[in-house]
């Protein structure tokens, strides 16, 4: 695969490429916040259920306190997602990305 030159041109594709300059994609929010939020909520709910689990529920799960463990695991996972977002925020796409092969 040599690196010289441009791919073959096509009017429909060029049109779409030109439109891309008006793109609003940079306004897309960061999905890590949503994943983190949902899992923190699930983690809290399920952990609380786990704390108050009765003997019958623990016996059903073969003696494993599954609500407690799964709840804590989801809580930690959710917090890690939020931490990752806070530690490495998404970089805004640079303007020259909007005009590839111009």
């Amino acid at each position, binding site marked *: *695969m*040599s*690196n*010289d*030159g*441009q*791919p*073959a041109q*096509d009017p*429909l*594709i060029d049109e*779409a*490429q030109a*439109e*891309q300059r*008006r*793109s*609003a*994609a*940079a*306004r*897309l*929010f960061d*999905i890590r916040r*949503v*994943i983190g*939020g*949902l*899992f923190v*909520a*699930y983690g809290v*709910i*399920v952990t609380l*259920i*786990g704390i108050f*689990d009765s003997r019958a*529920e*623990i016996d*059903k*799960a*073969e*003696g*494993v306190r*599954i*609500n407690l463990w*799964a*709840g804590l695991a*989801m809580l930690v*996972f959710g917090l890690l997602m939020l931490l990752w977002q806070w530690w490495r925020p*998404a970089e805004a*796409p640079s303007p020259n*990305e909007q005009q*590839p*092969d111009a």
Partner: protein
Amino acid sequence: MDGDGLRLNMNGLDYLILALYFVTVLGVGFAARRAIRTSVDFFLSGRSLPAWVTGLAFVSANLGALEIIGMAANGAQYGVMTVHYYWIGAVPAMVFLGIVMMPFYYGSKVRSVPEYLRLRFNRPTHLLNAISFAVAQVLIAGVNLYALALVMQALLGWPLWTAIVVGAAIVLAYITIGGLSGAIYNEVLQFFVILAGLIPVTVIGLVKVGGWNGLMDAVGDTKLGEAGLHAWQDTGSTANPLGAQWIGIVFGLGFVLSFGYWTTNFAEVQRALSAKNMSAARRTPIIAAYPKLFIPLVTVIPGLVALVTVKGLGAESGDLQYNNAIPLLMRDLLPNGVLGVAVTGLLASFMAGMAANVSGFNTVFTYDIWQAYIRRDRSDEHYLRVGRWATVGAVVIGIGTAFIAAGFSNIMNYIQALFSVFNAPLFATFIIGMFWKRMSALAGFWSLLLGTLVSLSLYLLYKGGVVDFNSDLEESFWGAGLAFVTAVVVAAIVTPLTSPKRDEELRGLVYGMGGVDLKGDVLTGDAAWYRSPVLLGLIAVALAALFYIPVF
């Protein structure tokens, strides 16, 4: 699946978990709306997403309810051999897509897989593929919808109609509003929710049977027996649970079916086309290969656990069909709380599958049928509007095809038949066209058409009782293989008789013609060794090979 035997004991908190998920999914759709101004934003997320997002969406798009329920069922029915669908039947093709094919897809800036065919061959080839893809997507969307409705009816007692309409309405809402970004973001979320639902079932299941060794011992005593614990050992003949020889597994499943599905299915490839640059696009299927390596842990293992612990599993009909392996374990092992998460995960997996079909359909319909053949040279806003209406159309037709699917007793075989008819000849046409620059436009058309017809005829002859095979699965292996060979032979015969395309028309589309810039829009950090597509891909393939060792 009638009667109340599978009914789960869901309480208010379980429903709260489910409701929270629905609200989040719709919220993602609405929030993604802000990022849509052009048709490229709507159909390709403005080509702006990072590789980990597109990679997880890539694997999630394949992780439909059918996949989860079906692979657990296969685990219970065929045992450890089910891992072939992952380690040889998926990972190598995903890596090949990323390393070899993606430079042509992404580099040529095509907006869909059919569009590649328009540039490489001609408009008839393009139209043929666009229409067959659109038809296949709404048929498969219907299957996904029907499969979910069956599960919801059995587990939650919702009427079939309610389950179909509620599921379809939510998918419709978030894709119409949020476009591909809405679909992809939700797929990433779904990926994690699906895992959060399946991991507790697997863990408790393993505790119940006494861990991995306990499971292995117990499977040896079932009707599957010792043979259920080996992936390759008995494949010298067909005397193994899957009834397939190693050569069929390697070439039929590992090459034709798997490469056909993963490398030319636009519902998958679209996720990679929305990546922000060439490096991210190439890494998309390769990043997806890593979770794919591990998914059998949460599908095949629960299948085996169900085989061991559920007495009478494997009935022809009723609650004890193999398809109910995971629902049965959820009923028996999960207390309220994680139960709600697991039900949410199943629902999420259905939506992921259907959303992939619908978002693939609306793009191909708008760009490849409407814009190319019906209304050309309209404003971008026009196509954006058409895309939204195409989404509505796809979901409504999907509800209709759900009732077609209801007419098939074994849904998985229906899907396999669709793949052998649509994907195998397409893959053959693609792979020859991508590597043989002499292949002419007419050869592309006839390869695709005759390959499809041969596979379709074989299927119809088999259904009509004229041709005989051991199983439906064997028919689809042969159908795919024959379609592939037909396409190759037709290309070899027609090409010398017709005129080739000019070299400059093939730039960026065919291997060795130049015009592919692997380092084009490169970002800082993409040069790091851990972001090298080739290295990541080779590690994934090596892991797939290593994973076979303990279950050889």
